[in-house]
């Protein structure tokens, strides 16, 4: 795909989300409103099939090309699991599984009890998903959310929940095609976090230039300036981290790159959210002001699919296990340009 088509895709995502995924729409869906109209707009635009190969009537994009869509979802506080759906549909199409309708969430993990009960803990987007993809042993199951008992794990407005089924539902689709669901979830949460951080940064900068205390905009105070500079550093690092994580032309996320990105971004999240709220003052913690739509998501994304404590440990293990004497050589091989993997099956 040439650079210009790449930009066209990013632009069309941007335009649609700006028009259809407004803060008012986000709030309505979070309050239990019907998400069908937003979802239909997204699927009619073909965004759910961004990663589905062309021979299955998708857009045939690789991860790097789909990244702008994931990031845009973060920037617009997307209340539906669009990025997850796109990942899972890309996987299912490659696995030869018929593609189901409706939003698909990704479970960080699943447990099947001896009595056959299935449960998935802390699934982002569970309250608005029709399906959830979960790794069970060597298989991946696509479970119908309508049949599940849902227990919210988030605060007011959150769409995350624990899901459980007394037995495996009859309509469950199963496939044994390999897929790293945790890495896929981590990648989409890291990518969306990066977009969310960029939005929070814009809000914070604007507020610092607008809010006047002691006769001048608070952005004139050095203490505020330095906090915003630190925020800018984390936002730039987060963006680069997800670019690295999604780089290459293939579809399957590389677990080490994802680990680096999810860890680095997880570490940045509390700092970025704390600075944003500090600079905004009291207005920032109101329900009415938009900031909370974004900082709330950041905290949720940090927790989902493994926090930095989990992913950093994986990076550390990979470093110790590598043949490289020099860390610089380890870093180079971990982030080297990857050859096209095309449509892996």
């Amino acid at each position, binding site marked *: 795909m040439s650079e210009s088509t790449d930009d066209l895709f990013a632009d069309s995502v941007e335009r649609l989300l700006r028009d259809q995924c407004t803060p008012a729409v986000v709030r309505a869906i979070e309050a239990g409103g019907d998400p069908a109209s937003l979802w239909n707009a997204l699927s009619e635009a073909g965004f759910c099939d961004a990663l589905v190969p062309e021979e299955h009537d998708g857009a045939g994009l690789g991860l790097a090309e789909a990244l702008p869509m994931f990031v845009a979802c973060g920037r617009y506080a997307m209340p539906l699991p669009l990025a997850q759906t796109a990942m899972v549909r890309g996987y299912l199409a490659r696995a030869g599984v018929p593609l189901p309708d409706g939003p698909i969430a990704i479970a960080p993990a699943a447990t099947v009890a001896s009595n056959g009960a299935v449960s998935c803990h802390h699934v982002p987007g569970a309250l608005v998903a029709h399906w959830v993809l979960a790794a069970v042993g060597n298989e991946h199951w696509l479970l119908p959310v309508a049949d599940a008992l849902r227990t919210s794990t988030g605060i007011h407005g959150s769409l995350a929940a624990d899901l459980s089924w007394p037995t495996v539902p009859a309509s469950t689709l199963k496939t044994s095609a390999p897929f790293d669901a945790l890495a896929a979830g981590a990648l989409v949460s890291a990518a969306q976090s990066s977009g969310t951080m960029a939005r929070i940064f814009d809000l914070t900068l604007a507020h610092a230039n607008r809010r006047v205390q002691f006769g001048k905009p608070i952005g004139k105070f050095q203490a505020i300036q330095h906090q915003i500079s630190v925020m800018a550093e984390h936002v730039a690092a987060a963006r680069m981290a997800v670019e690295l994580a999604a780089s290459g032309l293939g579809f399957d996320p590389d677990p080490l790159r994802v680990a680096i990105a999810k860890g680095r971004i997880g570490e940045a999240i509390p700092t970025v959210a704390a600075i944003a709220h500090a600079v905004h003052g009291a207005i920032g913690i109101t329900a009415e002001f938009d900031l909370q739509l974004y900082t709330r998501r950041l905290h949720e994304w940090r927790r989902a699919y493994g926090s930095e404590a989990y992913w950093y*440990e994986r990076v550390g293990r990979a470093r110790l296990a590598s043949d490289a004497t020099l860390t610089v050589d380890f870093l180079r091989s971990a982030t080297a340009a990857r050859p096209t993997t095309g449509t892996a099956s």
Partner: protein
Amino acid sequence: MIDALPLTAIPPEDEALRDDVKRFLVEALADIPAEVRAHSWTGFDAAFSRRLGEQGWLGITLPPAYGGGGRSAFARFVLVEELLAAGAPVSAHWIADRQSAPLILKYGTEAQKRQHVPPICRGESFFCIGMSEPGSGSDLASVRTRATRMDGGWKLSGQKIWTTNAYRSHFMIALVRTSGTAEDRHAGLSQFIIDLSLPGITIRPIEDLTGDRHFCEVFFDDVALADDALIGAEGEGWAQVTAELAFERSGPERLYSSIVLLDAWVEWLRSQTPGDTESLRLLGRLCSHLAVLRALSVSITGKLSRGESPVVEAALVKDMGTEIEQLTATLITDMLGRHPDVSPPPALERMVNYVTQISPSFSLRGGTREILRSMIARGLGLR
């Protein structure tokens, strides 16, 4: 600004340099223990610098007409990354290679370029930076050292301080006042290339808290300078020094000051029974930060190679980089102390102590953390 740092790959022709550098360093550094290499780019070895010159690796981005390598900023990135990763003693030529020669090529006369750049590229001429003074640190525009016009040249009086390597350099490029007073700020400043063997110059090394001698006090007592000591235009010193600082801040040396220590610790961890998850987590954290910082640094190199001057972006990466360099030392210390009954090798202990003690300098030299953050804020449109 934040979106303006795209993921950038080092072109294959520049990446190809890496193996040659690695091979050279294995041989050249064979006898230098890690403990010494942990001094990173402050390790001084004139003979080593001359050997790099023989390889064609000094002034690698400078025009061949002046003895340079004529290669891209990416080639320099690869070279410098390998030198720092190995802990090569690069201090002797470091300043001349990184900022003095590019400055002379940008602002110097043809005669100045011919005089200075080829010996720099051969590793025979070492430079130091005369910016700071006792009364002028972060507030550089307040310098008081003064050059006064006289017949056939200039008379220089005043004092510089913290001048790295002054006592073992051939030349200093100094920022001094040529007209007006400190109150005139950016106006009336000029830069001079000062031959440090001239009469009237006294240089005293200052011992640092680790016992090393690198920075110095330099006194100018009516030093007679020839006309051609002025570099660039009289009164344009501020603009020139700003450009010089941009050269200083944009290289990979702002990520790797603690990298030799990190690798020594990795070697130690490998010798231990696995399972210390806290250590693994820290190792992963440091590696993750470095992977991202390295990608940002390569992206900045891409901007340099396109002729842009990514000053604010470089400040952003330097500020994050020095923080990780500092954390590397303090957190490895914590991990080594996690098991009071286990004794790491004394050389590793000395290394981590050395880096911990010297690490405050990482966020002072080349502009303090606070100054960088104010630059970033200005770049973001605050102020």
